[in-house]
């Protein structure tokens, strides 16, 4: 059973804005799924639909096998919204106890967990301080703690490192990796591609409400038909010309490197044979990878075309 399921979800707001178009995805248990997309692509709407904060115009969503329309689906779910606001009359501890109470935990059960979480996010010294005096980074850490207070199986995090300094970001990453190690499913919305690249098992790219790509980082960044070959000696123009004629466009890459755009994967063996027949040693062989950023930008450009 998948932890998160969306089937053909569409959402059109009353204003006429089509925020989601037939989005289908499923996130397995224990997986970290990253959702990428430019501003206004529908990332937050998708999370809100999954949590039943926004009702879909069409389609079906489920969390841990229970329809999102049922409140029970949110029993083991934690959520850190983007631009969240805590009531400023709360202290860090009372805020956590409040949200724990809403998740059905008694103050007695929640108090030790709140203390542990505050220590974990680095707010132990501010346990009894009012939230109104917190910096943005502190509020973000508290937000992370409130998302974790009910010991959720599924975590939705919308820009979790927003407003946090680089040291804090590294801390948050460590925290999320620890949560993954505990088997939690994490659904991450982020603008920070490096963060997504480091943390996520799979990534989806949302463009104008449409899920245009889904896959593991490797699948998305792999440029399947460009072969990078490192030779024993520099390739001359003649060799490049021969390779181009035999297989496809070939270009020099660095001192001894050659990049060949193949039509089929099966051509790799032929390329090696071709080079060896000409007395050239093969020192390295790899399929060329794109950066996630390049993939992301390419996906957006496809949409513009």
């Amino acid at each position: 059973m998948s932890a998160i399921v969306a089937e053909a979800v569409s959402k059109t707001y009353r204003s006429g804005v089509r925020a989601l178009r037939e989005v289908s995805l499923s996130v397995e248990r224990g997986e970290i799924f990253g959702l990428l997309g430019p501003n206004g692509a529908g990332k937050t709407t998708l999370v809100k639909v999954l949590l039943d904060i926004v009702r879909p115009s069409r389609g079906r969503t489920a969390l841990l096998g229970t329809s999102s329309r049922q409140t029970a689906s949110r029993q083991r779910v934690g959520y850190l919204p983007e631009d969240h606001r805590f009531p400023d009359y709360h202290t860090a501890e009372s805020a956590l106890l409040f949200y724990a109470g809403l998740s059905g935990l008694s103050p007695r059960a929640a108090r030790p967990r709140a203390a542990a979480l505050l220590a974990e996010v680095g707010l132990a010294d501010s346990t009894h301080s009012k939230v109104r005096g917190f910096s943005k980074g502190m509020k973000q850490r508290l937000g992370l703690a409130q998302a974790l207070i009910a010991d959720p199986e599924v975590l939705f995090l919308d820009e979790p490192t927003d407003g946090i300094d680089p040291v804090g970001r590294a801390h948050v990453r460590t925290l999320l990796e620890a949560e993954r190690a505990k088997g939690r499913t994490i659904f991450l919305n982020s603008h920070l591609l490096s963060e997504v690249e480091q943390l996520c098992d799979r990534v989806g790219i949302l463009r104008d409400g449409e899920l245009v790509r889904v896959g593991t980082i490797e699948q998305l960044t792999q440029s399947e038909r460009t072969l990078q070959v490192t030779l024993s000696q520099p390739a001359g123009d003649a060799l490049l010309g021969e390779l181009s004629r035999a297989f496809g466009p070939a270009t020099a890459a660095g001192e001894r490197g050659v990049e060949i755009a193949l039509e089929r994967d099966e051509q790799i063996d032929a390329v090696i044979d071709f080079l060896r027949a000409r007395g050239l040693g093969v020192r390295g062989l790899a399929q060329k990878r794109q950066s996630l950023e390049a993939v992301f930008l390419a996906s957006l450009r496809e949409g513009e075309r």
Partner: protein
Amino acid sequence: MNAFLALVRDVWRESRDKRVIWVLGLLGLVVVAFFGSLSFTPVDADAALRRAAQTLGEQRMRQGMFVGTMSRISAVRVSVAEPRAPRPEDDFPLGIDGLRVVELEFADTGEVDGLYVAWRSVERMARGEGRAASRGGAPSEADAAQAPIGPEEHRAVLESRFRAAGFAPVVVRLDPDSPRRFVVGAGVERPLELRGACEVSWCFGAFSTALEDHSQAEFLAELQAGVAERFAGFIGILVLLSMFAAALPELLQKGRFDLLLARPVGRVRLILFKYLGAVLFVLLLWTLLFCGCVVALGVTTGFWKFGLIGCALTCTLVFAAIYPVAMLVGAATRHVTLASLAGLMAWGLEGIVQTLRMLIESGQVDRATRWKPVIDAAYWILPKSSDLTRLNQWMLARDHLAADSAARIYGAAPTVDWWFAGGTTALFAAAMVTLTCLFVARRDW
């Protein structure tokens, strides 16, 4: 249950964070301290009897709960002898506690007739049958036309006048030699209800005054009604309504409501719990205040009367009925000021409707009569805080006074159908809360 308690605690934490609630609490403490500083000193009952005889032509006109000032209802010239103990020749029944006797001689029997007519007019007005006397005016022609007036009517009016002063039982004997002379035997079965027989001091004896026109029981009933109506029922509701009106628009702020909606609590329950949390807070606040007043008074004076605590329920019901209007507007607009104004306007509107209805029914406003169906419909729909306020008055009157005294002074209570008033008020509150819940439940956040 944990979710409910979490929201209730949240409401209380939010309330505690507002300065205005501390000001209200401080004022409440001043009120409690005032009750604790009261003390009463009985004055000679003869003085009360003499004063009752000398003010036969005066009647205190009710103005709401407060009995108001003495108004002359009839010109009476009477000479009053010094009160004395009963004599065998007075022929009064035996066994009346503290019976004192006073002899009256009127200048003219016509003045006793006039007193009788005025008294009847006032009685009819109190029953809502006429309005001449309500303006403190002279008896109407209809009243005067009820002649003939004889010795029995004279005896009845005098008995009533002394009863109104708190004496019980009252026996009036006519002098067989002169129709202008009467011998009145007045018992003191209920000393606390005797008007003019007590001196009150407050601020722990720093100030004192004689209660000439009040009995101690009336004074306490009016004082407590003042706390229930003016402090809790007006200032309190004004402050609390303004304070809690902000709660829902703030809760529904982007980024804050999301944190709640992501929890396993339905939207309807969230709103309902928030509402109940506010109502419970108000109930606790008023219960504490009224209990404080009752305990402070009981400890310092020994008068333990608990009726005031019941007023916490009615004051809370008024809040509970008006607050959902602010909630509904707050949910629809997410604007704190608009929500506050809506609550206050609903409260004002129902006050106006009830006042107009009362004026039309008592015949004091003739021109508005054609609007009566509209006003009646509005009355049926809107909460009935004025009616509930009258319930407070009646509860306090019955707490401090014997049933017949309470009925005589404050009127026979059930001119208002409490079940109808309470039921339709609760229905209004339920309708407003339901609309708010529906609005929040159906909307994307």
